[in-house]
């Protein structure tokens, strides 16, 4: 039995349009893979197929050797797959602390308790404080999320996802919307992620990608073009043409 995520022959089409074309993909513990590709290449679709937000047309999906193709989104989270959203999706009118608390309560299977106080579990409260510290969010802990600067909201997004203690973490454009001056906050946070975690980063910002990724997968028109180390990808003429071409469109 292999540990980590194993994907073979994954396909998805909407109407007649193919958005995932026979993708084979693996993610092992400790991996830091980045998924890049031009707009519309199917990166977010691919992430959604892994999390179960979308159902594939064909293909297999195994986590630690276990077939998870039929698991619903919520069940896959319990199985250990978590993702951050490209557009911050948080509980905006709750405090940062409450956001993280919700995630931990859910992970611990305590979110269906009716008669306990939500902040009454000292171990959970301790863990919240650790996460706040890890992402330097202590000073904003009591603020409602919508009051935070966007860069800090991205951190909450990551903290909340990490609170689920996933084995597979998918970061969907973690630096989207974050001003360049603050992007180091995101990079630092990613670098401080637990070593044995498998991380898949979908990202436009090449600086970030090359800083944190150990392997890069290039997706074009729903299919994998190539996979390699940052050095290999940087030297790949095909990728350079494609990617730079796509960049010109902006």
């Amino acid at each position, binding site marked *: 039995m292999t540990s980590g995520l194993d994907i073979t022959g994954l396909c998805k089409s909407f109407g007649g349009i193919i958005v995932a074309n026979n993708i084979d993909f693996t993610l092992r513990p400790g991996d830091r893979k980045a998924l890049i590709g031009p707009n519309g290449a199917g990166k977010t679709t691919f992430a959604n197929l892994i999390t179960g937000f979308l159902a594939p047309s064909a293909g297999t999906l195994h986590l630690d050797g276990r077939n998870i193709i039929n698991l619903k989104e919520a069940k896959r989270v319990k199985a250990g797959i978590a993702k951050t959203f490209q557009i911050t999706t948080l509980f905006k*009118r709750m405090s940062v602390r409450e956001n993280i608390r919700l995630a931990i309560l859910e992970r611990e299977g305590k979110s269906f*308790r009716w008669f306990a106080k939500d902040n009454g579990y000292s171990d959970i409260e301790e863990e919240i404080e650790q996460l706040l510290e890890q992402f330097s969010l202590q000073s904003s802990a009591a603020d409602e999320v919508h009051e935070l600067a966007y860069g800090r909201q991205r951190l909450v997004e990551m903290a909340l996802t990490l609170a689920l203690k996933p084995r597979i973490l998918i970061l969907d454009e973690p630096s989207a919307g974050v001003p360049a001056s603050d992007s180091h906050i995101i990079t630092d946070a990613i670098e401080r992620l637990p070593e044995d975690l498998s991380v898949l980063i979908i990202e436009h910002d090449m600086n970030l990608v090359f800083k944190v990724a150990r392997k890069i997968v290039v997706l074009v028109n729903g299919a994998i073009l190539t996979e390699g180390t940052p050095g290999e990808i940087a030297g790949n003429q095909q990728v350079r043409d494609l990617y730079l071409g796509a960049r010109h469109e902006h």
Partner: protein
Amino acid sequence: MDTAIRQNRPRHGLLTFRRLYLDLALIGAGIAAFFLFPDSLGFLTRVLIMIIMVLSLDLVLGYAGIATLGHAALFGSGAYAAGLFAVNFSADPLLGLAVGAVAGAVIAFVSGLILLRAQSLTLLMLSIAVAQILQEIASKERAITGGSDGLLGISMEPIFGIYAFDFVGQTGYWYALTVLTAVFVLLKIIVASPFGLAARGIHESAERMRAIGTPVYWRLVAIYTLAGGVAGIGGALSAQVTELVSLDALGFSLSAEALIMLILGGLGRLYGAIFGTVIFMTIHHLAASVDPFNWLFVIGALVLIVVYFLPEGFIGLPARARKLMRWSP
């Protein structure tokens, strides 16, 4: 529904003490009302019962964000179940309450399985349909429910075998106040629990709740079922105090009025349900006795004024007043 309904939860423990005082003050007001208005206990009891109904709606709408215009389905089911139980099995009030709660919860669970897959207008329409269908069934099964004449023959035993219901309504008032207090305390505990936090989470972002692994649909069914139990208790109380149940307990106007009271009061903090109900029913009562032909003008104007100038409902009033004070030189 929209997430823009504010959830001004206290930041930290700062307000906790004040909140406790507020709770005690509310219960005190309930006790004081008995002595201040000893001649209007019938009306006051109806207000208390309606508060239970609106609290239940607040749980569903204010906390979990489920917009419904069919809450009378749950209230009425509780009322009919408790009434039928009293007529056919036992006239013990507390047993009747339990039966009402179970009936409300069961109806909520079953209808929730259909309703809670829908959203927005579709959800509103489905919830209306459930209540209408139940009302039609109650109207048709005249041999059991009394149809449009009402369910007759409810005569409650004394509570604990000691406190008999009197025609002035004293026992009824204390009974309703006690039940309301118990419901309120229970709901206070539940909304501060992990379950309550998760309900708010669903309201804020169902998508994110799914992404942290919450089975959102089943969680909504659970909340709706709980609210059904609470509304069922309200219905049962109404049946026991009135000693009659009629089709209006399942009616659209009851659902609509409960919704109006809740939005007037303010969503998602339980207090709004209390203030909204008290203020709406009192104004209705007074306006209707001054000029019943035209009281609808007063209610219409009240509703518009609140929605235009107090978008958060009555519970937004203190904050608004404070803001005004700060602005004045």
